[in-house]
C-alpha cells in the first residue's frame, strides 16, 4: 500500500517544477505548459486525498480542474497567436504593451 505522503511528495515536486518553469522561462508557450504541470500536481493531490479519505468530491474537483485547464489553454494560445501576428516573438518580457 502506497502511503498518502508519497503521492503528496510527488505532487509537491511537480508543483515546484511548474512554478520554477513559470518563473524562469520566457517563452510564453512554455510558461503555459508549466501552468499545466502545476494543475496536474494539484490533480494528483486531489485524487490521492479523495482515495484515502474515501470521498468522491476530490475526483469531482479534479474533473473541473481538467475542464478549466482546457479552456485556459485555448484562451492562452489564442492570445499568443494574436500577439505573434503583430510582433514576431513569444518572449514574455517583450509583451509590455499594457504597462503604460
Amino acid at each position, binding site marked *: 500500500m502506497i502511503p498518502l505522503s508519497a503521492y503528496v511528495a510527488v505532487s509537491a515536486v511537480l508543483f515546484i517544477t511548474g512554478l520554477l518553469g513559470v518563473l524562469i522561462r520566457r517563452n510564453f508557450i512554455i510558461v503555459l505548459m508549466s501552468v499545466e*504541470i502545476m494543475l496536474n500536481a494539484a490533480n494528483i493531490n486531489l485524487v490521492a486525498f479523495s482515495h484515502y479519505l474515501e470521498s468522491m468530491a476530490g475526483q469531482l474537483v479534479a474533473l473541473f480542474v481538467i475542464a478549466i485547464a482546457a479552456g485556459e489553454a485555448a484562451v492562452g494560445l489564442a492570445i499568443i497567436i494574436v500577439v505573434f501576428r503583430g510582433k514576431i516573438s513569444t518572449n514574455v518580457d517583450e509583451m509590455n*504593451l499594457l504597462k503604460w
Partner: protein
Amino acid sequence: MVAVFFAYFALVSIVAGVLTVALKNPVHCGLALLALLLHVSGLFVLLNAEFLWAVQVIVYAGAILVLYLFVLMLLNLKTDERYTYSFSCCSLPMEVQRVMRPSSPCCKTEIRTRWASRCSATTSCSLKSSACFCWAPSSALSYSPKRRSRWMRGKTNP
C-alpha cells in the same frame, strides 16, 4: 507490485516535468509534457480513479496537448531565447550598480553594449547542450526605448 508501478510513474512524471521546463526546443517540451500527462494518468489508475484516467488521456493528451503542438508548429518557433544572457559573476557588480543608480551614464553604456552583444551570446550559447542552465534575469536588462517604439509602431522585433 503496486509500489513498483508507483515508483515508475512517479519517477517518470517528475523527470518529464523537469524536462518540460528545462528543454530548449519548444516542441521537445511539448513531447515531454505528453509523457508527463500519460504518467500522471497512470498515477490516477493506481488511485482507483479510472474515469479520471480516461478523461486525462482524452482531454489532456488528446485535446490540450494537440492544441499546444499545433500552435508551436504554426508559429514555427526556433529554440528558446532563454539563453541570451548568462548571469555571470563578473557582471554582478554592474547589476548592483545599475540598480542603485540607473540614470548614471556608465550604466547606460553598459546596457547598450550588453544589448549589442546579445546576438553573439545567442549563437554561442545555442551551440551548447540543451541542458545548460544559464539563469536569465533579463526582463529589465534588455530594455531599450528605440526598440520599444519600433514595436509600438507595429514593426517586427529587432
